């Protein structure tokens, strides 16, 4: 390890030092404001270090981590999303009169895990990153506020994530035992050979790895935990799980499969295609009958991951761009949606029932407008990033001639319109039988600023996405 390597590692070092600083500060002087301020400083330092690391030419640090432009882009995305979650959490936690300093520390360690994941080129880094992320999340769900509902969600998540890790480790072990490799470059030939190869043990190992990844991404049939955990977790933590946790794992999946061009007849392709179709269909259909906004968002995220898999299956450079663009749009959209839920939650309970949103357009016009933009972005309507993102995904699929998948995508997202518009209707349309409008909590200044910034982001890059696409093109080009 040279000094140069340390410079390359700066983003990770910044993300490692910040939680320590937050923790030590909390030990000496408990202050919510100080904890948030230090967190934001740490995240800002991470962003700055990304630019410093970008000046280095050699980006591979040990066989474990590669800080290519792709990794740096995703670390930046995760960091910004974490900052948004941190600011959104402020008034949510402040209202509840708890001591939430450690919450921010956990947020930072979880992001560290995510950063390791997106840079990992080796099973060891993969597993380390995933565990840092998961362990932080167990605590995040239940730590800040002690409520039976949150404990239940945390236990559910703990059990399932624990089982996932076991699958993963076993899968890695099997692959290693047969092939003696744990690196991305070593894995690629195996994936290219598909699962139809003669070596059953390797095939089993790859399947177990995919099961682990599937659980993290919450795609059908590994989706069962999502609605319960989304509903059970505090709203800002839900936002974090939906974005950073899933996004980091998808980025890793993309890196591992980038060299692979899946043959549409191969077993591996069929497995992914089946998962994608099941996720799109089940996610959208199950959301139809929900009255809980958090659960609707959970099912919607299952469906969204299905759309992402369609682009992923297209393989090639266009697919990588489509996936990354979709993830950025999905991050911003989900953060706005969960941000609104967070901002409106009262100390007694989260604003998760459909009734909490009745007449919101009259009581809190701007908040309702932001939520409406987010919902239309999820539905893929023009003037929002969701439109360009879905267009890109369909383009990638069409480029690879995945017609069946695209038609399922189109039909499923049409079903999705129904439940998104239901929330919009609840916010905007006056019902005759309604006595009074729901009144949520007042939206704090920080939350309002974050929501406004994210909504503006959704609209600006929904109208003129070219600069973002060029940035993503440069990032994706560095993948092997």
């Amino acid at each position, binding site marked *: 390890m040279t000094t140069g390597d340390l410079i390359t590692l700066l983003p990770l070092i910044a993300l490692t030092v910040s939680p320590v600083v937050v923790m030590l500060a909390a030990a000496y002087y408990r202050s919510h404001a100080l904890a948030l301020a230090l967190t934001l400083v740490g995240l800002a330092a991470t962003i700055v270090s990304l630019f410093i690391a970008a000046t280095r030419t050699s980006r591979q640090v040990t066989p474990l981590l590669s800080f290519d432009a792709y990794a740096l882009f995703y670390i930046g995305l995760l960091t910004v999303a974490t900052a948004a979650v941190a600011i959104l959490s402020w008034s949510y936690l402040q209202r509840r009169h708890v001591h939430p300093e450690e919450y921010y520390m956990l947020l930072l360690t979880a992001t560290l895990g995510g950063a390791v994941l997106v840079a990992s080129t080796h099973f060891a880094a993969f597993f380390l990153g995933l565990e840092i992320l998961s362990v932080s999340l167990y605590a995040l769900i239940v730590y800040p506020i002690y409520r039976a509902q949150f404990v239940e969600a945390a236990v559910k998540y703990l059990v399932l994530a624990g089982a996932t890790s076991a699958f993963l480790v076993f899968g890695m072990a099997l692959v290693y035992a047969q092939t003696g490799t744990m690196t991305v470059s070593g894995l690629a030939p195996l994936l290219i050979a598909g699962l139809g190869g003669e070596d059953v043990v390797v095939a089993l190992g790859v399947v177990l790895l995919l099961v682990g990844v599937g659980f993290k991404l919450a795609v059908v049939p590994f989706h069962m935990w999502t609605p319960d955990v989304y509903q059970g977790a505090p709203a800002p933590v839900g936002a974090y799980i939906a974005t950073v946790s899933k996004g980091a794992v998808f980025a890793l999946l993309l890196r591992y499969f980038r060299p692979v061009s899946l043959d549409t007849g191969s077993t591996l392709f069929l497995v992914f295609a089946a998962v994608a179709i099941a996720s799109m269909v089940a996610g959208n259909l199950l959301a139809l009958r929900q009255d809980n906004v958090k659960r609707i968002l959970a099912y919607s995220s299952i469906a969204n991951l299905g759309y992402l898999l369609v682009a992923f299956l297209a393989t090639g450079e266009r697919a990588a761009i489509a996936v990354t663009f979709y993830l950025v749009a999905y991050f911003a959209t989900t953060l706005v949606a969960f941000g609104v839920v967070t901002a409106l939650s009262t100390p007694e309970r989260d604003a998760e029932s459909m009734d909490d949103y009745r007449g919101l357009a009259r009581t809190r016009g701007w908040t309702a407008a932001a939520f409406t933009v987010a919902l239309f972005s999820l539905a893929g309507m023009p003037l929002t990033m969701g439109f360009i993102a879905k267009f890109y995904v369909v383009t990638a699929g*069409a480029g690879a001639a995945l017609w069946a998948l695209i038609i399922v995508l189109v039909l499923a997202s049409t079903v999705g319109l129904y439940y998104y518009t239901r929330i919009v209707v609840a916010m905007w349309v006056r019902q005759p039988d309604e006595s009074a409008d729901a009144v949520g909590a007042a939206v704090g200044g920080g939350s309002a600023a974050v929501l406004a910034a994210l909504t503006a982001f959704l609209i600006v890059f929904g109208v003129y996405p070219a600069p973002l696409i*060029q940035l993503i093109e440069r990032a994706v080009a560095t993948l092997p």
Partner: protein
Amino acid sequence: MILLWYILIPAVAAPLAWLVSLSRPQLARWVAVAGTALPLALVTWQWASQAGALRAAFAAHGPGAAGLVQGTWLAHVQATWIAPLGISFFLAADGLTLIMLVLTFAMGLLAVLASWRGIQERVGFFHFMILWTTAALAGVFLSLDLFLFYFFFEMMLIPMYFVIALWGHERRVYAAIKFFIFTQASGLLMLIAILALYFIHGRATGVYTFDFTQLLGTQMPSGTAFLLMLGFFAAFAVKLPAFPLHTWLPDAHTEAPTAGSVILAGVLIKIGAYGMIRFMVPLFPQAVYGFRTVGLVLAVIGIIYGAIMAYAQTDLKRLVAYTSVSHMGFVLLGIFAWNTLALQGVVLQIVCHALSTGALFILVGTLQDRIHTRDMAKMGGLWAVAPRMGGTAMFFALASLGLPGLGNFVAEFLILVGTWQVSKWAAVLGAVGLVFATVYALWMMQRAFQGEETHALRFGDLVPRETGMYAALIAALVVLGFYPQPLIATARQTVTSVQQITAGSPLSPETASAAQTMIVDGATADDGQ
């Protein structure tokens, strides 16, 4: 650059209307009037000043001109938008575009005027939505980049959805969601077709572009072309609406507020016709030829079914909505006939249907504002109470049934003559639809305005603002009935150029000389006399 203003003016007026309404709600109405009247004046001016250019372009290239393909449009704007995907911001206008733009802004203005009394709640937001729809509609008619077209095509859904869901009648939420889902689903099918075309063209030539003029004439297997054509047809047939895909229309038109119905009937459903003429047939002439029989059958079913359903309604607004299904059947008939006469008829029908049906919707709206019902069983003898309203209704009912001397007659006559050359029985059955139209139109007059006045309804007759609106519409229909030549001349270049594009296919067997000399001489279209 003038083309950009057509989109920008209403797009800028939209948030402005909302902002001024925060302090003075009534002011939003005037902003909306300015936001539609200004581009209306602008496009009328462009039309008037370029009428000579239109003739010159036609004369210079003669019937052999390929119009848009050769770059003979009146004005255009082209700029890079999303370079990595080959998407450009490409707006262009020819005669048909100008007609559609005039229609868009006129109907937008009419919608604003018609809501002067009816909309008293969230006035600023309402006009925001109307102006947003207008901007998106202008974009649809101006785009020649298929991605841009799809962008605007989807963009108008949101404001229309809100207009129906927020200010509509009893079952507004149901109608709004149904409208939204129908249009979005069919739009996505078109998107798939657009993308397939994009890749087929890109693979063949190495140029990945959504530019319509470059995509024209892309070579592909006939089976593929047929599937892609179906994708476009799905989107446009839902919009139009053509027979089995029409079910959203009666709900949306009935439940929408008057302004919403006017824009829906006047402009929005015309996108279906416009899209078929501009994009679907020129892109896939062979496939359309293969689909012609089905298209003609659907058109005839639409004409007759729409008329019968209209006759069966008790809700006055629903009746008017079903007449749209019938009239749009004629449009479909004309498009699948695809000859000069039929296409001229289609353009006329687009305009005249917008005027007459828009007027009928406003009339139903004013009636509902006064007597708070649309149920014809609760009406009867209204002529005695409000003679000016009764007379106006009579006029538009006669226009709707195709009375000679009014624009609608010329349009339907041209379509039927054109269809006769292609399929005699389709023309005959279409003509039967005219008889049904007489039945429903007169039956409507009988039930609502004639007969005994038994319900003791007392209400005020038309006020000057309303009389003014109707007078303008009546004048326009009469002028088009006796002298449709200016409209036909404006659309002539487009009609000729789209036919030139399809000239190599069995769809346009007529040679460039025979039938088309008729229009060059301006010898048609005096049929109304």
